[in-house]
């Protein structure tokens, strides 16, 4: 059971690190918008490119 004297501080340290990480993320603004990312990930990049191939060259040409 002596192992517990190492495990407890280690567990607390680990927990502390996670809390620190969470605070850092919050302060960094990563949690400011909790509504959009869940929708954003639904927009499939692959699909988008496939469907847009017909239009993409046109708009590129115009830009050039």
């Amino acid at each position, binding site marked *: *059971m002596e192992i517990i004297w190492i495990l*407890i501080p280690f567990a607390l340290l680990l927990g502390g690190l996670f809390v620190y990480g969470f*605070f850092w993320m*919050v302060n960094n603004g990563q949690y400011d918008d909790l*509504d*959009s990312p869940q929708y954003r990930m639904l*927009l499939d990049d692959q699909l988008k490119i496939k469907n847009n191939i017909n239009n*993409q060259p046109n*708009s590129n040409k115009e*830009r050039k």
Partner: protein
Amino acid sequence: MSAEVISLNIKEVVKKCAHCDEPIALSYFSKLSKEKEFCCLGCVTVYEIINEKGLQEYYDIKQDSAILKRRAPAEINTNKYLYLDDSQFLKDYSSEEHGIKTLEFYLEGIHCLACLWIIEKLPQIIKGVEFSRLDIGKSTAKIGINSNGKFSEVARELHNLGYKPHPIKKNTEQTILQRQEERTFLKRMGIAAAGSMNIMLYAVSIYAGASDIYAEIFGILTVVLAIPVMTYSAYPFYLSAYSAIKNKRLNLDVPIAMALLLGFIYGLFNISRLNHENYLDSLTALVFLLLITRYFLMKIQQWGLTANDLNYFYASNSVLVKDSENHFREIHPSKISVGDILKIRPSEIIPVDGFIKSGESFLNVSLINGESKPLKVRLGDHVFSGTENLNNEIEIEASKTLKDSRIGKLLKSVENGWSNRARIVQFTDKVSGYFISAVFFFSILAFLFFYNKGNLNQAFNYAITLLIVTCPCALALATPMTLTNSMSKASKKGIIIKNDEVIQKLSEVKNIILDKTGTITFGKFKVLDFIFYKYDEDFIFSLIQALEMNSKHPIAQSLLEFTFRHHLKKLNLAATVLHGKGVETQYNGFQYFIGAIKSKDTKIEQFEEIFNEVGLYENNELIAKFRLADTLRPDSKEVIKKLKKLGFNIFLLTGDKKEIALKISNEVGIESKNVFYEVTPEKKASVILKLDKPVMIGDGANDAIAQSNAYVGIAVSGAMDISLRASDVYLTNPGLTPILDLFTISKETMFVIYRNLFISLTYNLASVCFVFLGLINPMIAAIVMPTSSLTVLFSTLFGTQKLRKLFKEKC
């Protein structure tokens, strides 16, 4: 004269607009597609632009995604947004980093996944846009441009796509404060979660039978871990309880704060006696659960309009001001000072009060007094802010600044209405008030009872047991959770409830007051039917298009919109606008005139005067006749009938003329004794105050004061912003049908709350008896308490049959 009569029956049409899903009264078509039908020209334009940019996928995404927010038909963009390029303006509003200028916009009309998709596609469709990111919850987009881009162009494109942009001032104190608050709340939740989970680890070990030195160490660890949770995370509860007690009130936070403090002190006390018993595991979990419930509640309310949103709406369109060199340039309305000469173009909103310096025109004053007929103004006339210039360019001299103008004042009185409103003690507050007093009374009683038996330690133990076992968790958690649950489900159905009190209040009301213009009706002139005496549809419509092309009169505009549904070949005619009379032209040797029906022709058919009739004349002979009126929303009649069946008294309140008010009330089935007509906004409020617990349903600025004075104010879809601000509930789906759902939700939710109260009170009563019989110790109390909470939780999630059915329906 052979009369070919074509009559359109509007009520039978329930098709939905392909762009905005608004029900279509009259279909419009795009030249790109014969199948898709639209509700207005604005939506057609946006549809065509989206196609032109190769963004058709928008409609596929829209179809698959649930609608999240209010929808509205698109407006045709006339704004140039040149002030966005003004360096003075950018200094206040945008920030620059690595050569990329960033500006944040509030976008009107954001409603679903497809909007997110299209907004974030901006870098691919507008030159010079580096990035674009949308916060769908707040409807704000951060857009960055490089040196090739211009914000005015971005804003114009956004508006063309159907999202009206309002720039947001960067980093005002308010926004920083709000962001800070939100972040702090998240941190409190994080600490509570980490603390309670870790405590659980050690608490379980103790329950599992850890002994001696381990039990002591674990006991100390739980207390140490509980310190940040009980102080930092639970701070909001202490604060709220403190302010309640200071105001001599009891709210739900009082017993919670009390239980938390006592439990914490008890834990510390036991640790100091080297006794590892404490209930910090349940207490910290309680803090975490409560914080989470409140967080969700906050999030739901954010989907509604926050106080800040109002700032975006006012003064975000530019205005033309004459400078010292007699040139007009665009400025931001907040910069207008008294005496400035402003040029107001057709379809612009007059930003400040003033006098007409030159020109004459018709104004749409419905936002101010609810009258649907345009008001004619000429030189020297007083004009009010918030009115829309309809046909001619006018110049006005500002007599007030933005802040002191009519709209500004109206806004202020709305705010006052809010703060003056008697603070209604929430239902659960009332119950918990008694409940808490009872709990304290019994705790003290238990303490004295067992102290009399001679054991201080046992007396203390039983008092704590009682406090814990009757801890109003069920009350504290279940009521807000039931409300949150209903509110979030309602918001997915397009009913945004801004305040949870509303659900309770709606269950008590009997009187419903409806505004006319824009609520029961669409608030816009539409062609009802037309009669041709000569020629066919194509020719007449082409002729009308050519004639009315340059007229800005509202009736001309609706005629024009009406004929635009058909894609006709254009007749190029030089038309002369005869002000206030009509339009005239020559074609194929004939003289054509369109305007008000000349008196000698009225004998053909006597129309009631509330309709606006327009005749088309060929050499003074009437060849076609159009009848226009503000039409009823398709569901108005049905909803009013159902509401009456449910036992509500329905009233009609309007600023419009008597005849129109009575005609409409007759049509939808409101008794004429319940109709109030020709009422000013201020008077509307006084009518409201005479009724018992009135619900005001309206859409305009003229309803705002009434709404804020009503017991419950409801704003309908497409409502003016000030009205949204003043209301407690607003509907994002068009029409009045959601009101029926709202009443069902309110009634059923209250039923669930009563059921929960009954369950938790029974639990508590039983456990109080057990405590006095000495059958429960704190350990068992800690087990019984969550059981009662769980029962109530299931009852909440289960809801009622009606609620389940309502929320299951797809909106």
